């Protein structure tokens, strides 16, 4: 039969519901992120601090083990808000490393290969595309942040000889909210920066630079202009202050250089809006041809 006698017609079979389509992208995103051996290695390394904290909880709740291991130490091992703050901070910085490795894999390849026009010609919106990628990175980061932190909390509830959980639920809530804010911010930041840098190699460096260089600039602003507002550019410090307040742990900044929570939240919101603007400008169904 000759080709011209074929009549082409629209597909009439079952269609994936609109709200489910982003999960297709998320599923492929997960597969791409976790196909790398380095991702698996980073994930395995991220569990090492959790094991250390787990041993800490065991020791704190077991006087016999504590007396055997910490023989000459006069310092009592206590599991409180500061302990969980330490766990959250450790896991959150590992999440930054994981973001710098995974996010460029999710988005830079599509941009470098000019695949966006093909992807967006499918029945999926630009928002759907980004949301699918966001789910993939957010889910991957959840596995190393709030999930292990809450598991530590559950283990402490189980191991404690005293009724502990009810009186300390705010710690669990603080850890959960703090981790969600951090990984949400990291996901948007990673996607925005990766979308602007075509090369994966550069994108990884830019994500680290975007966290550490403003911290240095903030320190210069503080020192040169004799102010404390430069600390708002220091993401590691602002996030630590926010987590500390969410968990109810003691203040670690000096009284004079304390930052208002509203200012921290405003900076995070502004940074996210800037990232969204960057994504809006970059994620478009167009192909760049040079030459």
């Amino acid at each position, binding site marked *: 039969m000759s080709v011209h006698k074929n009549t082409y017609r629209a597909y009439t079979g079952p269609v994936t519901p609109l709200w489910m389509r982003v999960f297709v992208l998320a599923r492929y995103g997960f597969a791409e992120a976790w196909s790398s051996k380095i991702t698996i290695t980073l994930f395995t390394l991220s569990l090492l601090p959790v094991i250390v904290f787990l041993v800490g909880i065991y020791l704190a709740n077991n006087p016999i083990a504590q007396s055997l291991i910490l023989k000459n130490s006069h310092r009592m091992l206590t599991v409180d808000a500061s302990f969980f703050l330490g766990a959250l901070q450790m896991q959150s910085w590992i999440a930054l490393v994981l973001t710098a490795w995974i996010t460029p894999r999710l988005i830079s390849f599509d941009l470098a290969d000019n695949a966006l026009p093909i992807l967006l010609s499918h029945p999926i919106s630009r928002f759907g595309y980004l949301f699918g990628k966001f789910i993939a990175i957010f889910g991957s980061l959840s596995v190393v942040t709030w999930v292990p932190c809450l598991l530590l909390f559950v283990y402490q509830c189980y191991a404690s000889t005293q009724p502990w959980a009810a009186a300390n639920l705010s710690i669990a809530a603080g850890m959960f909210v703090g981790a969600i804010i951090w990984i949400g911010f990291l996901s948007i930041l990673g996607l925005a920066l990766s979308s602007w840098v075509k090369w994966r190699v550069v994108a990884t*460096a830019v994500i680290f630079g975007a966290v550490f*260089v403003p911290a240095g600039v903030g320190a210069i602003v503080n020192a*040169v*202009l004799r102010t404390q507002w430069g600390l708002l550019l220091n993401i*590691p410090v602002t996030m630590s202050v926010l987590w500390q307040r969410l968990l109810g742990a003691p203040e670690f900044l000096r009284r004079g*250089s304390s930052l208002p929570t509203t200012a921290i939240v405003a900076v995070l919101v502004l940074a996210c809006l800037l990232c969204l603007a960057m994504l809006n400008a970059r994620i478009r169904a167009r192909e760049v041809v040079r030459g």
Partner: protein
Amino acid sequence: MNQTTSSFRKRVMQQPWDLWWIQALRLTRIEVKRNLFSWRASWIYFLAFIPTLIILIHVAVGRRLQLSMDDDTEILAGIIQFYYIRLGIFFGCLGIFSRLIRGEMIERSLHFYFLSPVRREVILLAKFAAGSISALLLFGSAILADFILTYTVFGATGHDYIFNGPGLGQLEAYLMITVLACLGYGAVFLLLSLIFKNPTPAAMIVMGWEAINPIAPSLLQKISVASYLRHLMPVNVPAEGIFALLTVQTEAESVWTATLGLLVLIVLVLVYSCYRIRTFEIRYTTE
């Protein structure tokens, strides 16, 4: 012995040094233009000149503040020790020197260089020279501008501090530190870009290594760029707050020992890079 030395000397003299020099010059010129005058390089200008901008604002509002020259001298030393060496020059050199070889791999243009009748060592050293010139021009001029702006606000006292006091000596030391930092980090990142497809994770390990290096045994401290540079700082900055995390105390070394130590490290890294590039294979499909 004398015969061997003379034959070696004769062999060295027979090499086409003039040709290599011209080739290196041409390559360096091309690379410097690409490093300094392309839109992609704009972020390095930001890294280099953002402290200058902040100091400029300080100069503009400085008359309303109670300023002390000692404080500002210490702040300038802190900016160079903590910002430029640990962040600005580090990330700047990572960008400049990683692009020299790995960037050409990603752009799929490295084979043009390798197919031309130029020795690979000449290509590598020319690219290193170009990266060093670009980094030095940017960060050197930024530090010079920072220095001038810092003391401008003090008027005649500042002028006196620079020309009749320790100012010029400090400026010389800061520029020396910048040169060594650019060359040191440049050599390390050039080598990393030859070894790894993605040199950034390795660079982050280098960053971590530079931070924890002082607690390492003295022998291991010799393989760190920042540890040599610390001994060359003309003004000692006491660490406090967040800076304390990045600051380290080690035994004092003389300026000559620190400079020579770093230069030896740079030469060793470059020699190994020249050895690596001889067997370097281009596989664009895996990039």
